[in-house]
Structures are given as C-alpha cells and as structure tokens.
C-alpha cells in the first residue's frame, strides 16, 4: 500500500514442522509452526513481528464452522473463534510479515499430523534435520505482482414511464452495493455479511421492482438504477470510477442513492449514515420515510452524520463517493460506526453463518416500501405494498440461494478477472430483472499493489533423521565386511582344499 509492504511477504515453504507446546530452546527460524487457531497466542505472534524474529512459516488450522452462533441465535455473543480470527487478521494485514502464513481447515489428516508432531516434540528434541519428523513443503514460485487489478462495476436500469407531457429526463433513484471483499487470506474471503448481504438485498429489490415495472400500468415515474460496484475495501475506488463514467446529466438526474453495506445480521436496529447534515430537507424527507416504515415494521432506524473531509483520502462509506459528486446519498448499515481501513471487508470470520436470511429480508422490505412510497406517492397512506403472501412478496428462497452462492465465492477484486464466471453470473442475473445492463471495467488505483499466489498445495513429507542414515551405513558397512571375510575364508582358504580340480 503506497509502497509500504503489508501482510505476508513470502510464499515458498520448506521447513520442518513444529507445534505448540514448543520444546525448550526451539529455534523457530528453520521451522514451520502448525497451530490450531485457538492455540495460537496472539501475543507470541505480535512479539515475533515486533522484534523482527525469524519464523520459518506459519500454518494456522481453522475450525470448519467459524462463526457458529450459540443456541439462541443471539448474535451479540460472537463465538471466541470469530473474535480471535478477526484480531489475527487485523494483525496480519496491517503488519509486514516476513514469513509465509497459510490457512487450512481442520480435517483428519491434519489432526493426525498435529498429534504426531506433538508426540515427536514431547520427546524433548526440537524438529530439525538431525532428528527426523515431518517436513512441510509448499513449492511456490516467488509471488508475482498482479499487473493491472481490474474492478468491474455492473449496472442496470429500470426505466420509469414518461408521461405524455414530460419533456425532461425522469428523476432517478439509485440502489448501490459493493460486492467484493478483502481479507488476510483472499482465497477464503467470502464476505457473507460484508457485503454479500448488501449485494443480495440489491438483487432482490431489483427482482421485485422489475415485476412492478414490467407492466406500463404499474411503472413508476422514477428511473431506478442498480449498481453492483467493486473496489469497496479500497476506499470505494470503484464507485468513484463508476460515477465518473456517467454523463453529467445522468448524474444530475439522480435524486438520491441508497447504498447497502452489511445488512445481514441485525435484529432491531439499522443505521442510516449521511454526509449531508440531517437538517438538509432531502435528508429530512428520506429519514422521515425511513422512520415511518420502520415504525410499522417494528424496528428502529437511527441517523448518523459524518462530515466528509476532502483532504483525507479515507472513504469509510460508499455514499461519500456520491457526495463528492454532489449527489445526495446515504448508506444503510447495521454498523453504527464507520469501519476502519480494511476492517469489515469480509475477512476470514465472515462466513455463511454470520448472516441470516431474515435480516436481509427485513432490509429489502424496508428499502422497497420506502421506494414505493416515493415512486407511487403513497406517503401518509398505510399501505403495505410488498406484503407477505402477495405476488410481490419478498422471496426468502431467492435470498437464501444467492447468499449461499456468495458465501461460496471468494471475491477479492484484484483476483477476479474481467470475465470471471461470478461477474458474468451477476450480470446475467441483473439482466433478468433490469435493462441496459452494462459492465464497466476499470483499473484499481495505483496506490495498491497486489501479489498473486492465493492458493497452493501443501506437501507433507515424513523424513528420516541423519542418525538413521548413519546407523544404516554402519550396519551396511559391517554386512559388507562380514560378507567379504566370509567369501575370502571360504574360497581362498578352504577353497583349494575342496575344489581342487581344474577342468
């Protein structure tokens, strides 16, 4: 980042395996440490990084079910693994780590390996060439720079119906969500909540509004613009490029934009983040709509105002990019405070278990009802447009299947090619519900440099110690000497006595 190296700087691994508890005097500079997540003391790691001590490599074993909720489904009591993992990720991403760090999931093979390593270590000798044991090898070439990391923004329109006398362009409401993630292990960053939930909510909103807009009788007088943006973790770089690509008139026609970020695991409270002051009439109107609908739904929406500091390049919320282009925008999120740089970007701990379908459904209902009130002028009337069991009901199955797909797909932007099947799938899905679907490809800003090598095969070898080889040599030597003596005695000494005849 801006020339400063961050994260693990090495990929190739070729060292003897060691595990906790470490034998005394263990020299870890030639060892690869294998540690289950919960056994890894973060203080130990921090000490290593701070004192620039050498470690051969680190293999962290993750439990299969990382963000398991406890029985009541209470999200506040996040399990220990989730917290530990979040802390670990933060440490790995913000420090320069000179040794390779790999993640693997627990399975029988690895558990047996770990038990074996511990058994060998308990005999008191540190793992090295002279004592034998296991060797971990990852034959990886030097990681190469990803040359031009692309970001792909996907947009689709639902055009409103122009009346007979309408000369000017119809106003537009934009719904935006970033679909990419970032984490310490890019191949494992599936970001279900950040921001799989937002992107799936967007798709569902597009789906139900496309039903309304399919018939001219129910088409509203607003255009709806749906944007799936990329480059979110990097100060919403993609959103900025996307907005810049618009014609100025189109941009000016946007009444306001609703950005969705992390809406998958809340039960009662949602936050509306704005950069314009709440006294601003537009913001006031929108917030009133939000309060009305939320009251009806039995949830609460709070408003949080954060001024933009133009000189600061940090963009914490997506709506700030809109505000820089003078478009009114807000971000709807379950997070109450703006995330730090590279925080809440869908890392290792953000798996399928950390989102639930009901939260996403509630978000969709909230946003859809608000849009309907604006578009169809239903303010003040107590109408539930997207009622359950109606033809416009929000579909939990749709949301669930898309959440499942998002949770299976790591989506770190520099590692997603322009024609990645996932991007194609998103484009196809958006084309099902909207028209004028267009993918805008751009290059991520030069401030970030990414290195490839996200996934490798680990080879584990059982190696014999040098002492074994020496012992073998000794035995072999004595065997040959005995053979030699035997042959000499039998053929030269006794030989002439028995075999005395020549032909």
């Amino acid at each position, binding site marked *: 980042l801006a020339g400063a190296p961050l994260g*693990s700087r090495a990929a190739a691994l070729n060292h003897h395996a060691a595990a906790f508890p470490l034998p005394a005097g263990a020299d870890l500079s030639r060892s690869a440490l294998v540690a289950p997540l919960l056994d890894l003391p973060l203080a130990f790691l921090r000490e290593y990084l701070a004192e620039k001590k050498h470690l051969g490599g680190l293999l962290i074993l993750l439990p299969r079910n990382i963000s398991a909720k406890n029985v009541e489904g209470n999200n506040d009591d996040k399990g220990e693994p989730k917290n530990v993992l979040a802390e670990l990720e933060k440490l790995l991403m913000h420090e320069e780590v000179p040794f390779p*760090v790999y993640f693997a999931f627990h399975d029988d093979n690895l558990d047996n390996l770990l038990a074996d390593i511990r058994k060998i270590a308990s005999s008191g000798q540190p793992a090295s060439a002279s004592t034998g044991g296991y060797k971990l090898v990852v034959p990886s070439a030097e990681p190469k720079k990803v040359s031009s990391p692309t970001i792909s923004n996907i947009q689709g329109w639902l055009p409103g119906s122009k009346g007979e006398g309408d000369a000017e362009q119809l106003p537009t409401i934009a719904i935006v969500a970033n679909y990419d993630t970032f984490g310490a292990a890019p191949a494992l960053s599936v970001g279900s909540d950040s921001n799989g939930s937002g992107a799936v909510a967007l798709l569902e909103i597009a789906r139900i509004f496309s039903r309304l807009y399919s018939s001219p009788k129910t088409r509203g007088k607003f255009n709806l613009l749906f944007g799936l943006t990329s480059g979110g973790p990097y100060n919403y770089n993609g959103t900025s490029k996307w907005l810049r690509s618009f014609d100025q008139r189109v941009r000016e026609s946007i009444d306001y934009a609703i950005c969705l970020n992390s809406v998958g695991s809340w039960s009662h409270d949602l936050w509306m983040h704005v950069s314009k002051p709440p006294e601003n009439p537009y913001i006031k109107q929108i917030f009133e709509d939000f309060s009305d609908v939320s009251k009806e739904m039995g949830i609460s929406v709070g408003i949080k105002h954060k001024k933009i500091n133009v000189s600061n390049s940090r963009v914490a919320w997506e709506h700030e990019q809109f505000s820089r282009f003078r478009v009114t925008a807000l971000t709807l999120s379950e997070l109450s405070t703006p995330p730090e740089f590279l925080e809440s970007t869908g890392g290792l701990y953000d798996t399928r278990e950390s989102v639930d379908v009901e939260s996403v459904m509630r978000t969709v209902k909230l946003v859809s009802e608000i849009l309907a009130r604006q578009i169809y002028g239903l303010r003040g009337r107590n109408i539930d447009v997207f009622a359950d069991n109606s033809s416009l009901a929000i579909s939990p199955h749709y949301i669930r299947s898309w959440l499942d797909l998002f949770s299976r797909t790591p989506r770190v932007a520099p590692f997603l090619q322009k024609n990645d099947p996932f991007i194609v799938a998103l484009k196809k899905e958006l084309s099902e519900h909207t028209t004028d679907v267009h993918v805008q490809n751009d290059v991520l800003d030069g401030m970030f440099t990414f290195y490839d090598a996200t996934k490798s095969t680990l080879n584990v070898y059982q190696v014999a110690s040098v002492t074994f080889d020496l012992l073998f040599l000794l035995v072999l030597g004595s065997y040959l000497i005995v053979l030699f003596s035997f042959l000499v005695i039998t053929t030269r000494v006794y030989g002439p006595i028995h075999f005395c005849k020549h032909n």
Partner: protein
Amino acid sequence: IAQHQAIRPRRCPGAGDDDADEMTVFHFLNCAVLTFGPHVVYYSATPLSEYDTIGTSVKAAVVYLGAALVKLVCLATFLKVPDANDSFDPYQELMKILIGFIDVAGLYFALTQLTHRNISQNHKFQAVGLGWAFADSVLHRLAPLWIGARGLEFTWEYIFQGLEANANLVMTLSLAALGSLMWLRKNKPRTLIPIIYACALLLATMPSITSYLRRSLEWQTPKVVGFELFSSLVMAFISWQLFSACQRPM
C-alpha cells in the same frame, strides 16, 4: 497476503534446503551400496579377481541384456494387457514362466558358447553368475533408485530393493552353478541328476513364484523380501552341496 491450501501427500524431487539435500543423497548412496556393493565385494573377495575374470563377467552381462531384450519382445507379443480385475490367469502365468526360461537359455549360452580364457569351471560359473546378476540389478534397480531414493520422503522401498538384489545375486550364482553342473560336467553321480534338474527348475521359476506371492496371496513387501532371502540361502546351500558332491568322485 496469506494463503489457503489443501493437503496431498506426494513425492517431490528434492527441492529443499541444504541439509535435506545432503540427507537424501546420503540415502541414495546407502541404498546403492546395498544394491551393488555385494557384487563388488564378491569379485574382490574371491579368487575371481586374482584370475582376472572380469572379461567373462562383462560378456555374461551382455548376454543378459540380449536375453532381456528377447524376453521383452516375447512378452509384448504373447501376453495380453492385464485387465482391471487383476485375476490370476493360469494361461498367462504359464506364458510368463515359459518366457522366463529364456533367462535359462541365456545362461546356457553364456556358460557354454562363449569362449573363456583358461579359467577353471568353478570360477567360470561364478564369473558368469556375477556378471549376470550385476546386469540384472543395473537394469531393474538403478533407475528407480536414482529417481526415487533422492526424494524427500523416506520409504523403506529402496532398502528392500537392495536386499532383493542381494538375494538375486545368490540365486543367480546358484543357478549358474547348477547350470555348469548340468551342461559342463560330463560325469555326474546318477542319483543326483534329478535333484540337480529339480533345483535348477525351482531357481528358474523363482521370479514367477515371488510374483504369485505378491499378487495372489498378497504378501507385503517385507514378507516377500524375507522369503527371497531365505530361499536364496537355502538354494545356495543345496547347490553348494550338489556341486561339492559332484566334485568328489573325480
């Protein structure tokens, strides 16, 4: 940036740090000495070296290679490709045994047809047997050893292969001894003749016997190698007795 991976045990030619490379080359050298050392020791310990019989051994080695080539052609021509269920087909096994007799023919050729300098009969069979066994070890065991034993992962495989080479040497010498009895010695005690032929037959079919043990009875490698070593010693003893018995009347 940290990464994610999967485990798959696999051999990987020593892409390692320094002491690992030394260790695996060490293992290769150990196994090579085990495989080829006894041949060298045999040559230097016995009077073979005094009488400079290396020429005979070399000629025998060449005959072995020729016989191996003929065997290969016959195997390719007459044997079917083994099908998946890997059953024991008696007809195929019989073909393999018959083709194995090409080895015996080769030994016959080496013992009787090649011109040797004036060396005694018992030295002749030893030299031929030695050259034959050495060529066999080189052809069948050197390449796997070079490729495999230098790998990172430790296995017992090459040590077993070396032990097999030892057993093979003993058996070849015994077969050569019996061969020289059968074809080079004219007057033998009548009662011993059937025993000689029986033992020779047993030795000639030994490869088929071991492959039968390995495949059909599914013996593990240590057991098979143990059997080979034991049987080679037994056959050597019997051959020695037969050979010395044939010497006595003269």
